[in-house]
Structures are given as C-alpha cells and as structure tokens.
C-alpha cells in the first residue's frame, strides 16, 4: 500500500513532532471530533508522543457510541420481528440496548446481517421480495450520501420492502454544543476530513469566528493527524482562529456537491438525541415526508419506544475534557468495556476504554486461566 505508507513515515513523523514541540510554548487542549481519528491516534500511540503541553480531548465523533439507547432499542425490536432481514454495519451489533444487543437477537433466531454498504441491503431487498429488509442508517455526514442513494434507488426500482432506521448526526451542531458548555476546555478543533470531503468547509468559518477557535480540517493517517495538530497549535500560538485545510488531497472547499444534493433530496434536519449527551437541536437528519414510506420507524410502528438513559456515569464530562475517565466512580467497576455504561467505554477508541486498557499495564498479573475481563470492540 505504497500511497498509505508515505503517511506513516517515522522520520517525517519525528520532524512534525519536533516542530509541534518547538511551537508549543504553553498548554493547549485540542479536540479531534472524529472517531476515525481517535482510532488512528490510539492505534499509533500519537497521544503519548506529543509534548506535554498539547492535550488531545477525544470528542463525541464515534457514530456507534452516540447512537441513542432509544434507537438501539428500536433496532432490536424491528430485528426481532419475523420476516425481517435487519442489516447493519458490523460494529453496531455489539452496542448494548436496554437489555440486549443485536448479537443476542441473532442468537435468538433474528435474521441480522452485517453489510458493508446500504446498497448491499438494497440488493437483499431486491432478491427477497417476500421479506422486509431494514438497513440501520447511522453515522455522520460521511455515511449519509450512500444511505440517501439507497432510498433514492429503492424508489426508482419500485422496492416497497426496503426501509431505513435513521439515526444520522451532524458535526457542526455538536461542535457548538461542546463550545457552549460551561467550563469547556477545548481551544482548537481537528475537523473531520471525511465529513468535510462530503459537506465542504462552509459551515466552519462561522463557528471558528464565534468561538474563536482554530479549526483544521484533518485526515486520518498518522502524518495527517500530526500535521493537523501542528497547524492548530501554530494558530493558537499566534492568536489566530481560522479554518484551515490540512487535508487538501481529499477535501475541496465546496465538498462533494452531488453528494450534498442527494442528502438534501432525501433527508431533512431534525433535533437528535446523542447517547451520553442528550438532545442537541438541529444535530441530525431524518427522511423527508416525500420518503416517509421508507422510514422503518413508521413502517414498524416503533416511534413509541421511549428509553430513559439512567444517569450513572460521567461520559459527558469526559467528552468535554472536564474529567479524566479515572475520576468517574463507575470507571473500572460497574463500567468496563465488557459492561459499558457509556459511549466512551463502548468503543475501543473511547477515552474510557483506552484508559481502561492502559491502566492495566501497571496492574498485577491476572491469574493464569482466570476469566478474561477485557475485550476489544473494533468500532469507530
């Protein structure tokens, strides 16, 4: 993979780290919004290599983690119905609802399938006209165009047995929610490159100006992330707060207009609950009235499912960088990767899950043959 290797070059990484170290004269807290970037940071150990002055706060940008409990419960209900083929991206299968997950539904006889694209689900609907095929449409602006395309195609092909359970979320309102929170510590953002490759950069200057934070559009390979951090720190040191594109090989100013048109044709903005955070106005998408026939919530009449999320853990404060995971009373006791109380423990890239693993490095040896308490959940 020649092209990718170039973005993983240790010597170039060293040079960027030296530059970041030389630039940072005081402590700065940056947030990477996207779960994919968090994954890369943890996987390559980037957070341990940064100078002490630069702190990374892992944002709420993992679509799997922030999908509300209520929506998971709706998914579980629909997937349990006879005659349904419930299709999902793989990592949603292990996310706990109130009392089970999609794996459990599959174990009890539900037809739950992992697909790699909503178009695969569409194909299943075409081949199984006597079955109801439902696709779990989660994710940020990155996955929305393909999901919109699937609905568009379903209508074009006259497929009446295909629907979406939609829980799409949008990045800019989440940034706004984080920045308006009291005691917010975030001083700069690494904006999610893949989101910007679809939506472009137009939504960000207003946020950068209003909250006086640099926003650097950043990619996902180690060098991309280090370059994003370098530019954000440079702006902070100079007292600037601009939107900068450090990922020009994938992101154009205007994004992907065709994809945006597709989203706008099929989806409309709505308020959305975020797991562990709560309701954020205008932070999601739902199907427009014209495509309501493809909305699984209506088709399976699960709109009435309401789930209260008990206030047991402090993921919200962790997501803002207000506390370290270890400061939460539930951490490592009632809340582990095996029994996650919150979004940040569900995903292996979540701040709590990462801390949980690293803390074990200094723990006494487990008993040979003792029950394995840990897990890796490879989610975004």
């Amino acid at each position: 993979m020649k092209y990718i290797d170039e973005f993983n070059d240790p010597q170039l990484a060293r040079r960027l780290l030296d530059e970041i170290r030389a630039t940072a004269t005081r402590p700065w807290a940056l947030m990477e919004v996207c779960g994919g970037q968090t994954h890369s940071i943890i996987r390559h150990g980037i957070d341990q290599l940064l100078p002490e002055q630069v702190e990374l706060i892992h944002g709420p940008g993992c679509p799997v983690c922030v999908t509300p409990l209520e929506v998971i419960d709706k998914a579980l209900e629909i997937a349990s119905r006879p005659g349904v083929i419930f299709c999902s991206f793989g990592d949603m299968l292990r996310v706990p609802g109130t009392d089970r997950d999609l794996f459990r539904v599959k174990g009890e006889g539900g037809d739950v399938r992992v697909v790699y694209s909503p178009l695969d689900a569409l194909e299943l609907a075409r081949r199984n006209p006597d079955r109801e095929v439902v696709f779990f449409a989660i994710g940020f602006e990155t996955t929305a165009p393909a999901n919109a395309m699937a609905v568009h195609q379903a209508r074009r092909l006259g497929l009446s047995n295909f629907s979406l359970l939609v829980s799409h979320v949008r990045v800019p309102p989440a940034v706004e929610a984080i920045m308006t929170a009291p005691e917010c510590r975030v001083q700069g953002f690494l904006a999610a490159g893949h989101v910007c490759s679809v939506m472009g950069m137009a939504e960000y200057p207003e946020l950068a100006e209003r909250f006086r934070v640099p926003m650097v559009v950043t990619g996902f390979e180690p060098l991309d992330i280090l370059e994003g951090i370098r530019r954000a720190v440079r702006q902070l040191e100079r007292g600037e707060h601009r939107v900068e594109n450090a990922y020009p090989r994938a992101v154009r100013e205007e994004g992907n207009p065709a994809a945006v048109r597709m989203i706008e044709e099929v989806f409309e903005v709505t308020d959305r609950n975020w797991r562990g955070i709560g309701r954020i106005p205008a932070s999601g998408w739902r199907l427009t009235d014209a495509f309501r026939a493809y909305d699984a919530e209506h088709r399976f009449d699960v709109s009435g499912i309401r789930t209260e999320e008990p206030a047991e853990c402090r993921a919200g404060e962790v997501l803002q960088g207000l506390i370290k995971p270890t400061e939460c009373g539930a951490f490592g006791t009632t809340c582990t990767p095996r029994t996650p109380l919150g979004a940040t423990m569900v995903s292996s890239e979540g701040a709590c899950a990462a801390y949980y693993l690293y803390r074990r490095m200094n723990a006494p040896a487990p008993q040979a043959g003792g029950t394995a308490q840990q897990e890796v959940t490879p989610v975004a």
Partner: protein
Amino acid sequence: MPERLSEVVDPANWTCPAPLRDQGVVVMGHGGGGALSAELMEQIFTPAYGNATLAGLADSAVLELGGARLAFSTDSYVVRPLFFPGGCLGDLAVNGTVNDLAMSGAVPAYLSAAFVLEEGVQLSVVERIARSMGAAAEAAGVTIATGDTKVVESGHGDGVYVTTAGVGLVPAGVDVRPQRARPGDAVIVSGPIGLHGVAIMSVREGLEFGVEVASDTAPLAGLVAEMLAVTPDVHVLRDPTRGGLGASLNEIARASGTGVRLQERAIPVPDAVANACGFLGLDPLYVANEGRLVAFVPPSEAEEVLAAMRAHPQGAGATLIGECVAEHPGMVVVATGLGGTRVVDLPLGEQLPRIC
C-alpha cells in the same frame, strides 16, 4: 437554531446508557476464539468435566499413557464456504488438528474424522472434501484411522461439518506449553499473517482486494520438528487460528504471567491483508491464520531457530517480532512504527467491520 445552545443543552444532565446484561444464550462470539470462548470454557466446560488435564487449556492435552507421552486433540470445522482460495474444509480439518498436536511439540500420527452431512448435499462435494483430507493427511505424514458419518435433515446443518481428533507422541525432553514463556524469550512468527481470514472474507462477502488472497492452510509438524532439532527447549508454540496472533499472544501472556512486547514494523502483514483490513476497519493481529505458528524460544537459541525455520518451506518468512518481558504481566503491547505504544487486548468475540 437558538443563539445560545447552553440554554437547551445542559452538560450537567449528560447521561449514560444501562449496562449490557449477560447474554444467557449462545452468540456467534462464543466461537470467535476470544474472551467469550474462554469464558465458555472456564465457566461451563471445565467445571462440568472437572479434571486437572483440561485445566491447561492448551490446544491439545499431553497425557502419560503406557509409558509414552501422548498429545491428544480434537477440533470441529464449520467453515463457509466449503471451498475457498488456497484450500477447503477438508485440508483445514486435517491441518488444524495436526497443528494443534504439533503445538505441544508432538509428532502427529493418527487422526479420526467424523462427518455431519446435511441431507441434499451433492455427493461430489463430499468426495472432494474427503479426497482433500486424504491428500492433506499424506502431506502431513498422518493416517486417518477411524471415522463416523451422521446425516441431519435439510435445513439443520450447513452442508458439511467435520470433526477431527488426533494423537501423536511427544519426544523425550520436549515440554512446550504456554505456561513456559519466560521474560527474555524471543517471539517469532513463522510467516506473513492474516491470509486465511482475508481469503475467507473475500469469498464469503464477495469483496475484492486487488489480488486473489489464498489461505495459508498448511501442516506445521515438519517445521516444528526442525525447530526442536535445533533446541528441544522451545518454550511455547501456538498456531494463531481464530482470534489471530493477538488472541494467541494474550493467552500465552496470561497463562505464563509475563508480558509480550511486539515491534509493529517487524510484524509481517502482506499488502493484500493490510488493504483488506484497512478497508474493513479490522486489525490484522486478530485475523485468523491456518498455517502459521508463533514461538517463544530462549534468546540464546533465537538466531539458530530462525535459521532452521527459514530453511523449511513453511517457515520461509519466519520473523522475530518481539520479546517476552517481565513488565505488564498478562498483557500484550505493541511498539508502534511512530514510537508510541498500544495495548493489544484479547478480542471479545469475532472482529466486526467498523463504520469509520
């Protein structure tokens, strides 16, 4: 959109979901070779059978019988599709059990083969599988000495299931088991990782990764014999099948109370595997292999063992990937290419493709 979001979003009320309760039913993850598989063993089977031999939880048991040290192992094979690039259910069923025996340092000798056939399966399919088993047994130098066949009604099986069991003799002076890992041991992998898992994924999911990836299924007893000829003091051998290298190394670290430190850049990951894993959001360390072993050998013997491995066809790509350490006992840590570290944990069940 209100001017001040703080009026409607109150972080003080940010909450968390309820915990996942214990499953109570078998889920696919129980067969994934990770934490769920281990729990099934520790919480149900071991207490139910109640004997010390089983408590070692190695891939094969080493038994004293009539003055001989016998390695004994069994494994069921339920792969879908039955035929895949590089192999089929048949050679997998022979090589898998041969390798489980070899990982105890044994010389595999005899296998059994029990078939569960689904009504309606083409006899030509059964014949192809049986023939491949015969060929694989010959290549591995073992005899299929006994067997059984059952047929289940259509819809109650997945075409063909095969269970093989095997026995072999452990040479005198050989004591290979996970508990023997020692700080300082060299950690060696016999070749490129992840090929079997990616080969299966590519045909099962209809995914193309630029080039056809063939399974690495192969018997490893010959390679092990060459290694033991260099030094009978090989500490640990493991064939990293389900759960991949990551799961195997975690099991070894936990069984021995040592830590494992790997150098990421030394781990041989073929481009096709890296591409497939990059595309799907999987970690090559957790992808299954069927013709690889990982060995822990005393540092003084490492160079010689490596040379012997590289001289054998199944070990041509043998590589030193890290060492056994006294730090972080029970844990596997990777030094990343950039100089950071990350923990490689025991996977829960099977890996799941990531959305982003």
